[in-house]
């Protein structure tokens, strides 16, 4: 089996975080990531352009923070054309709801709170239908201690049960605001193990789902529409036809 390529899709650079994109790219490539996405919040600055830093992939992204669900759709539409990843920071019930019902949204993060895991069967079903990934923010497990961490882990456990039941896409992320908040993929897998996620699931959330999000938003020339792409024609075939996959 080929070695999976890992991605961290929630990383903040300056001015929101502390470090420049070049520093973050250097750290992440040392930690053996295949790519990171910079998701500075909308409004604070222009979204970062996607680029390659010494052969390391940096994807452009934006984090949409709104308090009003009706503004969410407008914001998402505005950024959809020129960014790879659109993340919505949830929090309240109605924002979470609006985010999972919009198939243009890629990732919903920060949906839980201290009292509540944020996700329920209705949101999970709709996230699964609209292909909106749920983000497990492992940074919270790293920085908090004691009661807060206990709450976070038990919330993640509930989220994971819903994710398994409704087959919701999910990603694992460090939600890093500086270079030192990043964690290597294997460490993230170990942290996910703390709330009962198996290694296979964790690899899926760190590699397969981020890849599918990126390929969905960066269509190659062979892409037709969701689920259909042109593969190479059979040898000896006169006409090269599109083949459903």
């Amino acid at each position, binding site marked *: 089996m080929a070695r999976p390529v890992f991605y961290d899709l929630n990383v903040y650079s300056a001015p929101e975080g502390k470090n420049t994109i070049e520093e973050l790219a250097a750290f992440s490539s040392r930690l053996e990531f295949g790519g990171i996405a910079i998701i500075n919040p909308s409004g604070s600055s222009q979204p970062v352009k996607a680029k390659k830093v010494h*052969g390391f992939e940096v994807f452009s992204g934006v984090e949409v923070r709104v308090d009003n669900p009706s503004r969410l759709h407008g914001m998402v539409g505005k950024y959809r054309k020129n960014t790879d990843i659109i993340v919505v920071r949830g929090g309240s019930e109605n924002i979470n709801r609006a985010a999972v019902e919009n198939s243009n949204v890629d990732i919903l993060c920060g949906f839980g709170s201290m009292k509540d895991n944020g996700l329920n069967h209705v949101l999970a079903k709709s996230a699964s239908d609209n292909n909106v990934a749920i983000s497990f923010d492992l940074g919270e497990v*790293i920085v908090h201690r004691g009661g807060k961490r206990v709450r976070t882990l038990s919330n993640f456990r509930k989220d994971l049960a819903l994710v398994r039941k409704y087959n919701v896409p999910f990603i694992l992320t460090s939600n890093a605001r500086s270079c030192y908040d990043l964690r290597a993929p294997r*460490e993230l897998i*170990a*942290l996910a193990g*703390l709330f009962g996620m198996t290694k296979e699931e964790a690899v899926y959330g760190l590699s397969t789902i981020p890849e599918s999000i990126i390929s969905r938003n960066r269509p190659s020339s062979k892409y037709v529409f969701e689920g259909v792409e042109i593969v190479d024609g059979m040898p000896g075939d006169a006409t090269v036809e599109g083949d459903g996959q």
Partner: protein
Amino acid sequence: MKVLPPTMRENKRYLAFELIAEGNSIISRDELIREIFSASGSLLGDFGSSECNIWLFAFDNNKGVISCNREHVSQARAVMATITNVKGKRVLFHVLGVSGTVLGATKKYLEGVDVFNPEEQSHINE
């Protein structure tokens, strides 16, 4: 006294790691030990820590080897991931590899490896 028969010995794994520290400062062994046990006590508790049996085997120049119980490597990694700073200096604990012997861990993952220096990032051009 006779030595403990091999079948009765605890099975261990050795984790080779590097410590990427802010400003490329050198971290002392005692400070790191304190931080590791505090992190392990906080995440796993006394009971979990006794099962996991984390021990700082060797540490020099921000590179080292940690030993832990064979069945609890993933927990040990999780503990290491929760270390955020040592004596006020922000650090990133990066596990380079896991091996069944100290020699294997040192030879395969540590020999000739330079600790990542956050100050200069020229190495990514190689």
